[in-house]
């Protein structure tokens, strides 16, 4: 269908100009810089640099520590997304059924939303502290030889736990409003058509929540990829032995701690491509199954 084109003035461009400027300054320009840097090899003091083509790329991606970080990121993101969505959905469904004191429940469940990831990380640090951490003591008391400073599984457990805890409240808010957006009459019609609550949930409620779930999945994967930086930085710092390095955290470590700007830039370009591919997959293949 051909749209009608009207004569238009340049005023609309003025309206979108601030956004364009922000994108240009904070995304396009740094991204360009990263791409440029990724082809350079710089000396440790930043005094000279030399064009090395794809050496930075081949060096990083072939590197075992990068592959490990990539693997950890994949597992970490999958776990965080799945668990935080699952727990939040369960809580939202239950909170939605509460009649007495509903507001108190909801407010309490939303509290964690106000906490910034680094603060959540610090709190986790205290709870898992080998000397004063209650959770540390508890886990050891129930027979788990828990030490996240030494054991990479335990360290992964800590970051996943904190990341999920922090994210559940955000997902909860969205799921709850999604549930309340489902027409009361549709729920009642389902009540008369289907006796089993479980079956009703999977055949009516869950499909009708699909748009919310899809949106949250995109948000949560982004969260797990990028925003958990603060949590990892304040709890494990990638330790032990880089086993809790996510790709983002490794970019930071190699670039700012290791002063390997070229390698770090190459990693961030690769990361950008990965996110791009993931986004395309999400919108092309999963969104199709979503009914709005």
């Amino acid at each position, binding site marked *: 269908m051909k749209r009608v084109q009207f004569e238009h003035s340049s005023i609309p461009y003025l309206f979108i100009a601030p956004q364009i400027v922000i994108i240009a300054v904070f995304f396009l320009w740094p991204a360009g810089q990263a791409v440029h840097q990724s082809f350079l090899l710089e000396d440790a003091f930043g005094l000279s640099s030399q064009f090395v083509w794809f050496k930075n790329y081949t060096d990083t991606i072939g590197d075992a520590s990068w592959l490990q970080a990539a693997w950890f990121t994949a597992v970490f993101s999958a776990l965080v997304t799945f668990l935080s969505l699952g727990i939040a959905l369960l809580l939202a469904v239950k909170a939605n059924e509460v009649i007495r004191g509903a507001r108190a429940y909801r407010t309490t469940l939303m509290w964690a939303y106000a906490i910034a990831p680094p603060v959540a990380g610090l709190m986790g640090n205290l709870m898992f502290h080998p000397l004063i951490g209650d959770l540390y003591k508890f886990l050891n008391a129930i027979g788990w030889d828990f030490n996240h400073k030494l054991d990479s599984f335990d360290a992964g457990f800590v970051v996943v736990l904190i990341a999920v805890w922090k994210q559940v409240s955000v997902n909860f808010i969205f799921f709850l409003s999604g549930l309340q957006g489902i027409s009361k*009459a*549709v729920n*009642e*019609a389902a*009540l*008369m*058509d*289907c*006796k*089993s609550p479980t079956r009703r949930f999977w055949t009516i409620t869950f499909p009708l929540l699909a748009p919310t779930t899809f949106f949250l999945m995109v948000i949560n994967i982004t969260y797990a990829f990028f925003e958990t930086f603060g949590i990892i930085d304040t709890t494990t710092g990638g330790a032990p032995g880089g086993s809790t390095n996510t790709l983002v955290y490794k970019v930071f470590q190699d670039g700012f701690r290791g002063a390997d700007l070229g390698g770090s830039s190459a990693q961030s370009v690769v990361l950008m491509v990965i996110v791009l591919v993931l986004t395309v997959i999400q919108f092309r293949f999963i969104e199709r199954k979503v009914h709005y």
Partner: protein
Amino acid sequence: MSTVKLNSIKKTYPNGAIAVRGVDMVIENSEFIVFVGPSGCGKSTMLRMIAGLETITDGEIEIDSKVINNISPADRDVAMVFQNYALYPHMTVRGNMAYGLKNRGIPKAEIDKKVIDAAKMLRIEDYLDRQPNQLSGGQRQRVAMGRAIVREPKVFLFDEPLSNLDAKLRVQMRIEIKRLQRRMGVTSIYVTHDQTEAMTLADRLAVINDGRIEQMGAPIELYNNPATLFVASFIGAPQINLIPVQFKNNKLISGDIELSGFKDLPENTELVLGIRPDVITPNKNGQLEIKVDLVEQHGADNLIYGALSGAAKADIDDTEICFKTAQGTLPDIDSVLKLHFDQKTAMIFNKESGERLI
């Protein structure tokens, strides 16, 4: 093929609001019952209690002599058509109609057959694979009905199913619902606030006011013989004319108006004289006089409105009189008309209690 019995059912909401104050009713097999009343009178609550969507505070509901108070909505064998259709937006028309059957473990071949049969009956067989959002309001309404029909329930419940349709479609669907119900012979309960729908659909009509049944009976019986002032004013369009009067010396008196020929009425009591608009005719020797202020031309007939001259000003509609005439009668605005009515058709109510006296 079922009877429904309500045994002094009551509904009190947790906040203390009383919606239904003890209703008794017996609905016979294949009867079409309409609950009619103003909004907030408890008619929808009663329907929802029968459906199982509201708990029953007190009393019992029986379907075929079986108490269903504590049976889940899905097991009551009733089907409901909702006001805003309540179709499952993520399912096709076929999916919507089949859903209730699937959950009851009916074999697929049988479901398909039932869905096709119902779709043919409702003339929606071409839309079976569409999503509800691709359908018009009338089509959605049909799908909602189809969803109820395929279940072959003991009782159909309709909760103001036509109020979201435009006027023309509403009349069309009204006729169709009536035909369908006749053909299938399923006991039906229909809630509406539209008195035309109520009059035309019902085998028996229950006028509900403030959680109680004011009167129940055949629609025409309620129109001709309303038991209370409320029923008289609720049933009939245009509304019955109500004139505040007092009875003295065998005369009905309202301001300067005096009507003789009445007897056996209490004196010193506020009374209301009710006259249906269609029993009033213009006549030089008429008992009443109005000053015309509005003429509505409906086509075949005209509705003429005017202020009653000489009446005691009262709170009832400023004693505005409305009557029906043929197309040709077109009095000028502000002209004065004498009106006659047959006093045998007049109704007299006690204003305080609403009780009918004559």
